[in-house]
């Protein structure tokens, strides 16, 4: 798994959100949260598992909306951030965090209504095994995002310290087939890749984002989008 050690350093965990989601990154955070809410819908009393939950950005948001949610991650320091956030928000009575391996989840078959992972598959060395395991513990829904091959992401991917696994549409179809999942809905976004937004100040980011959404709505824009959100069912 890429970044396995990096994500487990205390300093990385403490600075993670400030670094990733300030400046233009705020737009990314907002869009990702919207993607999760759109796909998972009303979550009150649903049993939800978030794989690779990190600092609990989505875990705590869904707990605030009434989900019974479990957040699993490999990194202890990242989970402590999530735990503190849950306590500060007062949702810690229906949220649980635990360390675990996404390929060997500590849950019985078909346990959760929804299982999801954000910003996870680009780090995955064996995506088929991870997706199959997510499917095993879900009785209804599996939701995840990917970074796309043949997109603006390809241009700078080689320059990133960890690189990212990029997926083509064909690879996604094969992964879903292999895991026994059916596509409910796919959304494609971010003609301009995340790295670009993280570098520019917020005032500028908003204008670029409007342009991005306008162009991204066209058929060509959809093809070149750097991120896809995959909503699937069992």
């Amino acid at each position: 798994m890429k970044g396995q050690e990096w994500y487990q350093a205390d300093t990385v965990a403490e600075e993670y959100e400030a670094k990733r989601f300030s400046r233009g990154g705020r737009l990314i955070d907002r869009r990702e949260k919207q993607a999760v809410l759109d796909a998972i819908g009303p979550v009150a009393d649903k049993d939800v598992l978030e794989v690779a939950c990190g600092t609990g950005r989505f875990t705590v948001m869904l707990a605030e909306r009434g989900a019974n949610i479990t957040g699993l991650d490999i990194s202890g320091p990242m989970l402590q951030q999530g735990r503190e956030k849950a306590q500060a928000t007062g949702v810690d009575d229906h949220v649980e965090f635990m360390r675990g391996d996404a390929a060997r989840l500590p849950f019985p078959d078909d346990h959760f209504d929804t299982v999801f992972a954000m910003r996870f598959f680009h780090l995955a060395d064996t995506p088929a095994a991870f997706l199959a395991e997510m499917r095993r513990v879900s009785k209804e829904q599996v939701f995840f995002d990917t970074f796309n091959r043949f997109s603006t992401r390809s241009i700078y991917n080689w320059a990133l310290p960890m690189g990212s696994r990029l997926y083509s549409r064909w690879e996604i179809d094969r992964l879903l087939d292999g895991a026994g999942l059916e596509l409910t809905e796919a959304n494609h976004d971010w003609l301009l890749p995340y790295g670009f937004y993280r570098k520019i100040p917020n005032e500028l980011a908003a204008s670029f984002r409007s342009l991005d959404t306008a162009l991204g709505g066209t058929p060509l824009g959809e093809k070149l989008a750097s991120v896809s959100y995959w909503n699937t069912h069992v």
Partner: protein
Amino acid sequence: MKEDLMEIICCPLDKHDLDLEVTERDDGEILSGQLTCTECSETFPIEDGIPNLLPPDMRDEAPA
């Protein structure tokens, strides 16, 4: 972790039930203790309120 988490979790290796042993508790929260698989006897620590259900082969390369 809360005690009712025991209803959900199982051994990551063979998916059998786990036994809970509590060392430190604060209100309803279990802060430290140990989980033991009822089948393979593998143990999993609970540290700072977070159960560590990483399989043993991943614990070494992933220090807490």
